[in-house]
């Protein structure tokens, strides 16, 4: 069942908050929609990548001469085809990028740092020729010891990935290199003093395995470079302005030489915010003087594109007998993969964000290991730290003998609470989601045999950022809206609805498209749950510009001052008693004479969207544990989250459900499995087990609306928070069912069965 509670004021909107048919739906279900691999160009070549078979090896030499001589091979590139980059963190949109690492990640230079690391690439007339050419490339490797596990990588004497990496954030500065790129620390109050006041303290250590975003569509692009130096790239990405920026930098080209166009996207979840194939395709296309198309196999997606971190987390929380938390600590160790930059910082900031606490200390470590460099994954860093915290809070409630929702309510952050990461919150919906959970029928429904129920909450910040939108009034009165944030979760629908609400025109009179990088000013990517928030804000501004211009034109025609004309109910009208009698002019009428009254009418908004607000969620999960096999089945799930305002509730519900499905996979099945040789053993969907429809119940949702006062329609952003609570909600449900606290994800059947057998031997198992 999908529900809404405490609707935001303004529920009398005509379009916002309704559920029109999805504008992107028809093309997607008929197969007409074009994804990354769907575009073809005349004369195109096939690009393929040679990847390292070793998790860690020095590259002594690469000999491409035999491959270059093979008939049908038109270009071969290695790391030498890219300029080296200095080691410096520079802003790229809202991210900090060290291009020294980026250039080494897209194509290895001195060392291969993970199995699957790109070593060379070829462009050939067919896939068969390209594959044959890869076999002819001779690479002389000096195989080095490797390290995969984060705790092992931190130990003195562990194989070093980067001989020049010294831990930042430690005083005095270390004199020996290590795999720990950075130590971070967030402190609020005095935890030592807080723990002295505690009646109950729970301390646990947790491990999570690396998991992949698991987007169905692999990375894909097609690139063409003209002899005049201009280039086009069609690519599946969360941000084509980012693709343009990274490629221009890596290739040493001016930004304006590259026109990047985003295809439809078959999932990204953060994993398509970086570049892998794109600079290679452009370099090959330039060298071959023909278009080059590159598509990763699923195996390459797993081995060579960024999953999220595996981690080791220690959490310690102390509370009074009445449930008030008096101190909270966490130590987070996150894998970054081959290059520095795990999401440990946001993980540390999120860990205790849902709560109003006086004494908090979180320490985090960013650790390099011989795995693909991690990429963002929905609420990057948050699910790991909050899994551990929400598990301990559940155990704490059990020790005190308090309802876990009541304990959370007692400590819940609200407007005015000083967040554990510093600033005070504005209006937030933590308490609203907890109350909605408590009053939901799910929470009161009796459980069956071998079943357990868990609850967990979650937090994500959400962001704004640079955004451009144009809205053109066409000559027949229809409108064309161009945005620059790729539509992943219903952006075109929500922008259309906000524009229609402003202009009071029917939805089918506005067509929304995603423009290429030549059509608009800069757009940061679709990520951070920002697209509906930021592009929506820009859309409203552009629509208001159109209305203002329409009024200006009518005022000229009516020979009235501009302030004597107003836009109301889809038409321009005289305003006030002295404006005289004029028949209202519709947008269609204004558009029809636009050429004679000053030229085309359009709104163009270019903003750095500020005012993003966090979204909080509370999830309730029922599981059934098979006592014979250890298999955990999720039998009921309710996701409750503050959306600010749901512009198109069906898409919001889809975000909630998708996040839950991914979180359940993370909790129960998904993991990168490595052999002792440092090679991934399950690089395919048969062995890397994401949940399929038959694994999941219908995921119920409750949309809570606590409007964001800084957005014209109250939008918060909803895409990331839903993946935060599921791991703890599932683990808490399993603990409730079995009496066993699982601290090592995934809770796969062999692990659960082993724990059950051990508990049965001790007489502590509930089933």
């Amino acid at each position, binding site marked *: 069942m999908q529900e809404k509670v405490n609707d935001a004021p303004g529920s009398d909107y005509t379009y916002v908050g309704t559920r029109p048919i999805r504008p992107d739906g028809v093309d997607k279900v008929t197969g007409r929609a074009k994804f990354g691999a769907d575009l073809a160009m005349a004369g195109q070549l096939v690009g393929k990548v040679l990847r390292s078979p070793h998790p860690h090896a020095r590259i002594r030499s690469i000999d491409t001469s035999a491959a270059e001589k093979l008939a049908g091979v038109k270009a071969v590139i290695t790391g030498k085809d890219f300029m080296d980059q200095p080691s410096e*963190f520079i802003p790229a*949109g*809202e991210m*900090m990028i060290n291009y020294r690492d980026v250039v080494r990640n897209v194509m290895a230079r001195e060392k291969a740092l993970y199995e699957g690391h790109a070593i060379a690439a070829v462009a050939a007339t067919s896939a068969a020729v390209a594959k044959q050419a890869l076999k002819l490339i001779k690479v002389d490797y000096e195989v080095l010891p490797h390290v995969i596990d984060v705790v092992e990588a931190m130990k003195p004497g562990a194989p070093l990935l980067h001989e020049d990496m010294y831990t930042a954030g430690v005083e005095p500065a270390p004199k020996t290199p290590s795999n720990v790129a950075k130590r971070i620390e967030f402190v609020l109050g005095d935890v030592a003093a807080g723990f002295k006041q505690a009646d109950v303290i729970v301390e646990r250590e947790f491990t999570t395995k690396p998991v992949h975003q698991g987007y169905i569509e692999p990375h894909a692009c097609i690139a063409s470079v003209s002899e005049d130096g201009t280039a086009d790239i069609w690519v599946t990405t969360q941000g084509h302005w980012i693709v343009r920026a990274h490629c221009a930098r890596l290739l040493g080209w001016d930004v304006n030489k590259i026109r990047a166009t985003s295809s439809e996207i078959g999932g990204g979840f953060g994993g398509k915010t970086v570049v892998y194939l794109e600079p290679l395709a452009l370099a090959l296309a330039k060298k071959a003087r023909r278009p080059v198309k590159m598509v990763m196999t699923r195996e390459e997606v797993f081995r060579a594109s960024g999953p999220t971190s595996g981690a080791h987390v220690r959490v310690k929380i102390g509370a009074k007998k009445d449930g008030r938390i008096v101190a909270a600590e966490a130590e987070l160790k996150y894998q970054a993969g081959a290059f520095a930059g795990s999401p440990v*910082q*946001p993980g540390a*900031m999120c860990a205790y964000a849902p709560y109003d606490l006086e004494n908090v200390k979180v320490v985090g470590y960013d650790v390099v290991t011989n795995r693909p460099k991690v990429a963002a994954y929905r609420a990057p860093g948050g699910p790991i730290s909050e899994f551990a915290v929400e598990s301990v809070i559940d155990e704490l409630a059990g020790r005190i003998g308090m309802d876990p929702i009541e304990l959370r309510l007692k400590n819940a952050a609200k407007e005015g609470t000083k967040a554990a990461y510093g600033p005070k919150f504005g209006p937030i919906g933590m308490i609203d989601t907890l109350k909605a959970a408590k009053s939901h029928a799910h929470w009161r429904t009796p459980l069956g045999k071998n079943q357990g129920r868990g609850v967990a909450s979650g937090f994500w*910040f959400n962001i704004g*950022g640079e955004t451009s939108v144009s809205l053109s009034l066409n000559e027949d009165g229809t409108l064309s809206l161009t945005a620059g944030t790729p539509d992943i979760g219903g952006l075109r629908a929500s922008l259309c609805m906000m524009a229609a609400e402003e202009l009071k025109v029917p939805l089918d009179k506005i067509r929304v498209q995603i423009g290429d990088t030549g059509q608009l000013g800069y757009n940061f990517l679709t990520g951070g749950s920002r697209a509906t928030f930021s592009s929506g804000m820009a859309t409203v501004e552009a629509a208001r510009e159109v209305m203002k211009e329409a009024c200006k034109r009518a005022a000229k025609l009516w020979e009235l001052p501009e302030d004597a004309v107003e836009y109301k109910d889809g038409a321009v009208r005289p305003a006030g008693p002295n404006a005289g009698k004029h028949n209202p002019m519709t947008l269609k009428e204004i558009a029809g004479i636009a050429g004679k009254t000053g030229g085309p009418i359009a709104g163009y908004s270019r903003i750095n969207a*500020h005012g993003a607000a966090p979204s909080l969620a509370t999830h309730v999960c029922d599981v059934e544990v098979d006592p014979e096999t250890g298999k955990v089945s999720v039998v009921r799930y309710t996701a409750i989250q503050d959306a600010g305002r749901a512009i198109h509730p069906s898409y919001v519900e889809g975000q909630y459900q998708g996040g839950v499905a991914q979180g359940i996979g993370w909790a129960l099945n998904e993991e990168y499995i490595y052999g002792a040789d440092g090679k991934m053993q399950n690089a395919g969907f048969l062995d890397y087990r994401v949940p399929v429809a038959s694994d999941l119940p219908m995921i119920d949702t409750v949309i809570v609306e606590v409007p964001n006062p800084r957005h014209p329609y109250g939008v918060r952003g909803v895409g990331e928070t839903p993946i935060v609570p599921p791991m703890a909600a599932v683990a808490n449900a399993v603990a409730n069912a079995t009496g066993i606290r699982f601290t090592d994800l995934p809770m796969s059947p062999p692990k659960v069965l082993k724990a059950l057998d051990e508990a049965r031997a001790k007489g502590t198992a509930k089933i």
Partner: protein
Amino acid sequence: MDERMAHVTLIGNLRQFTGGVTEIDVEAATVRQLFARLGEKYPDLLPHLETGSAVAIDGQIYQDALFQPIGPHSDVHILPQIAGG
């Protein structure tokens, strides 16, 4: 606290560049002025403010907003920038 000054709290690792100072009162009308004043006092801090930091003014987080006004009594936090997935 001087009543004309914003109260600024440095979050996370930024204290490493201020000799351990985490709270300071600063007279600044905008984020740009805030960075300049802090940079004069703590030169090692300045590059970390200019790249990679967000500023929360009375609870609202701003990223890359040099001209955002700061009130004379504002509660300001400087913290790491957030991206997302």
